[in-house]
């Protein structure tokens, strides 16, 4: 009986905390329909007859930022970078786990090492290198993301591959599969849960990444975070109405992605942490 009352109190506490978590997003949503000068001074009131502006903040914001184009670039870069990371790092992880050599061991530790290095350490030299090699475009940046994502991804894949029994692969070889077939037909299907985790962690990172794309391709191609930051401009006042509308537009795809694959995201994050 006592625990029942206790759980009821907990439920009320949790509801209050949930309200605190939703509140900021709700405020941004409400203000995206308000006249831009009545946002900074009073963001906590609902739009009134005088301050309601319909969708004009949205049209203004889209005009200022080119949001649809930014969305397109974000989507393009995220999808293809994550695909490249999954395909190539899973193969690399399998190879360096199965083929023992000094080179492979060194490569593995170099990849793991790269995980703890702050981006600022390589920020300047990496963007210079990308520039010199002509990688400063939406295709080239995919290669950069493959290089940066390789550490965590190879680490997670090889952690799992170590638990896959060799026998299955040997049987496939005896049945006449070559190494590529062994990997894609036998090993990769077993790796799928890890691949989903790796894909989710990398999607969360690349979709929201600001500084790397800003430095490498930011002048010519704006992803969503770059477009948002661009709204602030160099000097003076920000169009708060347009800002609120663009914040809403950039949250929508995230929420859609989250609600549609929530089960995998939460599992993936928990699994990713255990491996880490």
């Amino acid at each position, binding site marked *: 009986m006592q625990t029942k009352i206790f759980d009821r109190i*907990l439920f009320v*506490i949790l509801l209050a*905390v*949930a309200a605190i*978590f*939703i509140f900021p997003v709700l*405020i*941004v949503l409400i203000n995206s329909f308000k006249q831009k000068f009545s946002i*900074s*001074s*009073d*963001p906590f009131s609902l739009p009134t007859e005088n301050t309601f502006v319909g969708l004009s903040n949205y049209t203004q914001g889209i005009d200022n930022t080119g949001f649809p184009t930014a969305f397109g670039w974000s989507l393009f870069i995220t999808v293809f970078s994550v695909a490249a990371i999954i395909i*190539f790092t899973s193969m*690399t992880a399998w*190879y360096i786990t199965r*083929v023992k050599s000094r080179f*492979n061991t060194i*490569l593995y530790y170099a*990849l793991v090492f*790269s995980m*703890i*290095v*702050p981006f*600022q350490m*390589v*920020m*300047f*030299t*990496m963007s*210079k*290198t*990308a520039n010199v090699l002509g*990688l400063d475009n939406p295709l080239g940046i995919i*290669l*950069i*993301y*493959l*290089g940066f994502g*390789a550490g965590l991804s190879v680490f997670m894949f090889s952690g799992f591959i170590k638990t896959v029994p060799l026998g299955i692969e040997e049987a496939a*070889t005896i049945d006449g599969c070559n*190494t*590529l077939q062994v990997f894609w037909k036998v090993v990769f299907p077993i790796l799928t849960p890890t691949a989903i985790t790796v894909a989710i962690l990398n999607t969360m990172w690349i979709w*929201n*990444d*600001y*500084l790397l794309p800003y430095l490498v391709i930011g002048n010519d191609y704006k992803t969503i975070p770059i477009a948002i930051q661009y709204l602030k401009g160099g000097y003076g006042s920000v169009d*708060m109405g347009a800002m*609120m509308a663009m*914040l809403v537009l950039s*949250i929508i795809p*995230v929420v859609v*992605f*989250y*609600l549609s694959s929530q089960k995998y*995201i*939460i599992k993936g*994050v928990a699994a990713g*942490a*255990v491996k*880490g």
Partner: protein
Amino acid sequence: MNNPAKRYFPIFVMPTLIAFLIAFAVPFALGLFLSFTEFRTVSDAEFVGLQNYIRAFTDDTDFLSSLWFTVKFAVMSVISINVFAFLLALMLTRTVPGTKFFRTVFFMPNLIGGIVLGYIWQVIINGVLYRFGYSITSNSVFGYWGLIVLMNWQMIGYMMIIYIAGIQNIPTDIMEAARVDGAGSLTTLFRITIPSVMPSITICLFLTITNSFKLFDQNLALTAGAPGKRTQMVALDIYNTFYSRTGYEGVGQAKAVVFFLIVAVIALAQLRFTRSKEVES
């Protein structure tokens, strides 16, 4: 030992290796080298020994004060995030209705990017401060607590998920035994639950410490370091040294090396310390 897979090195390893060399390994080595030189464009680098490292600390106090601000921020946010996340995880592993809904809501902010998060909280904090005639950039105290609130909002859900997984992994018979032995809920918490979730604590501390130290986007969007440079964290200070001051590229790179060493030492020390507290299960 003649592994047939060996011939497949070009297909299996080459693409990742080339990308890793271009994106990380070469820039890392080059960065290390350039920190001992004076340069504008890389090709004009001239060896200057430790001069950049000395200048990073002596030309002005920006670097030291950003380091100190980062440490103060990291300590407060690491403690608050982990305490709140652990408490929520304890609540959500009980028989409370709607646990799935709560988990969904608490984790959601983690998927929103740092730049967007920064502007969301700027509006809210400025909205509150406006009533008292202030804004977030009028005093560094506002920026400090603003960043901590933001970081908590973003990371509590993530850490909570990890703690929930840890708590659910505790074998029920241990809990049962403790209850039969008459252990109170506080004793159970400190003697069983916390020691059993030590691996989760290790990873949560690691993630919160490294993320707090490396924070950039949120800092840029929320205050951009204002007022003055008093809410500027290390990552932002390094960025500004590189890109807003000519003639300071070498100093910026030296600061980056120091930053890297600090993050590496703290992360490894923390992993070693908490790993040693983990119990075999």
